[in-house]
């Protein structure tokens, strides 16, 4: 549907990738780990290696969770765009097909200390 | 039947108004909460100028209600003598 308007109505997106000075937004979240109230917003260059994203900011951010110590990144299940997906840890975000504002989710079956069974 | 309500500030001005509403609406339930009074009634609530005047001992313009009104619900019908709240269902 279009916006009801008195003349042609065109919206300019505020968060286009050009506005981030060569970086892009990536969202990441740990399924069923709701100590973290919302998915994390990260702003990174697309050349960042996936491994550096995971072992850098992501590992740092999840430390407050009691499951963090037991988290084995080689065993987690990944989702991108809410679909199962397998990353290449040594490829860049761009080469992994991770676009601007893509949402990555990871799951750790059996490792859910603070979460009641649904 | 759906409930209609009116909520008024709890103060000296509204005490006789609330008493008048109780007289005119025997089915109404008066809930006293901190600083306010909420009056619920099944389907319909009538507020009458003449009953308020009897309780108050002076003339009363129904629009004076606005000063101490907190909230209400239902379809409103007002004339010089009454203010009625009602649901059609």
């Amino acid at each position: 549907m279009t916006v009801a308007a008195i003349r042609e109505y065109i919206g300019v997106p505020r968060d286009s990738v050009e506005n981030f000075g060569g970086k892009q937004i990536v969202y990441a979240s740990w399924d069923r780990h709701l100590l973290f109230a919302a998915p994390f917003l990260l702003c990174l260059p697309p050349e960042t290696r996936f491994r550096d994203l995971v072992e850098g900011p992501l590992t740092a951010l999840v430390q407050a969770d009691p499951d963090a110590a037991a988290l084995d990144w080689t065993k987690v299940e990944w989702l991108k765009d809410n679909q199962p997906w397998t990353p290449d840890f040594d490829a860049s975000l761009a080469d992994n097909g991770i676009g601007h504002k893509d949402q990555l989710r990871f799951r750790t079956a059996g490792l859910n200390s603070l979460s009641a069974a649904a | 039947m759906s409930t209609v309500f009116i909520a008024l500030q709890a103060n000296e001005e509204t005490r006789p108004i609330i008493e008048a509403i109780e007289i005119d609406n025997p089915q109404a339930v008066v809930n006293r909460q901190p600083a306010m009074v909420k009056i619920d009634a099944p389907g319909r609530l009538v507020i009458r100028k003449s009953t308020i005047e009897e309780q108050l001992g002076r003339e009363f313009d129904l629009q004076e209600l606005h000063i101490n009104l907190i909230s209400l619900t239902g379809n409103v019908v007002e004339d010089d003598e009454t203010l009625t709240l009602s649901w059609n269902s």
Partner: protein
Amino acid sequence: MDMKVAKKKLGLKEKYKLMTRDLGWDTTYQTKEDVFPYVGYEGIKIHDWEKWEDPFRLTMDAYWKYQAEKERKFYAIIDAHAQNNGHLNLTDARYLSALKIFLQAISPGEYAAHKGFARVGREFPGVGTQVACQMQAIDEIRHAQTQIHAMSNYNRYYNGFHAFADTRDRIWYTSVARSFFDDAMSAGPFEFMIAIGFSFEYVLTNLLFVPFMSGAAYNGDMATVTFGFSAQSDEARHMTLGLECIKFMLEQDPDNLPIVQNWIDKWFWRGFRVLGLVSTMMDYMLPKRVMSWREAWDIYGVENGGALFKDLARYGIKPPKGWDDAEKAIDHMSHQFMLGLYQWSFGTAFHSWIPSEDDMNWLSAKYPDTFDKYYRPRWKHIKKLADAGTPFKNYGLAKLCQCCQLPTVFTEPDDPTLTCHRESVYNGQKYHFCSDGCKNVFDNEPEKYVQAWLPMPQLFQEPINGDLGAWMEWVSLRDGKDNGDYAGSEDQQNFEAWRGLATTNQ
């Protein structure tokens, strides 16, 4: 010599006719379409503006008289509050967080509503409508002013009140309320009436003003009770205007029904999200609580909103699309918000805290199906971290919803352990949402919502470029004073010291 004529007192209906309808005129040297250019493009068909009914039949002379009376009452109490150190009668200064949120997010909303009603009062051709909108425009500016004035008393003693205008414009959580009003004000006049007059005022403001203000009374805050109830005394008229407006549209033409229903669906959900924070104010921020958010929802949402939609069913109106999802969220939302506010409290111009054991027991009694199962374990873990000297701060900034602009803290309606992930692609760009409700709003008018100014992504753009310290300065947030945990804050220390001075001879 002039003859003295005894003035005949006019009846309510007669007076209303003279003081509203008789003030209108037909245009002669301009067409009606040129004078009222915005009344047609939304597709709403009106055949007879004379059918507009103001059930209160309030006229301007009576309006000024009663508003003046309200102002006198208001200032009598505000003066007494200021003269008698009213701030020391609070149950606890952590209560002030609720007021800070109110001042930063809600009072500016009142001002926005003022602008909106002033505009639609000009855009509608019907005289009854114009007068009613004009009164509401004046009411709304009065609300903004009295609220700011009342809360300025707290600014003399406590942090977080000093820069509400900057906060309103720049800090992240206020964009929720701001985008709500911007959305309404950039719509046409009829949609604005459904947005503010009907969905917000009629369906939702009771939840804000009635139990919350009663809660303010319970917590010894006479200043807030006074502005709250003074505002609310206008609200009954606003609600009635909203309801009359919707009935008027539906009675004028059957073609209006689908348009109106679509707006009800949209604005119920927008309003539910923007008022969601009230759940946290009620369940967590009032030291003494009158009722839980769930109990308030049962009275004002389920019972009252239910009655309203049953009544409107005669026109073919159905309850809003998001109604069932809202019901499913009620027992979760206050906890989800407070957990978020606590972990992001480095970036809020108000304090949050870990609920005490007593508070948690109260929450558990009020939310027997959800609190102990889902939320107590998280609070206990957070408490453990605080006790160990490593308080939990989540420096991972939050993903925001493109529509409501809240952090996406909400879970799947039927699975409270899983974050609700929703996205849409429009013109090759990806957009994220907190719920189906918000995604639906976006998908109906993507061209409007792609323009959203989302504070979190903005932080990584010019001029802040990801620098948290620069951001704090830009939003006028004084690190270590306005933000963080209430425990150990200046507000807490000062309140305790001053109250000690007030109640002892030391």
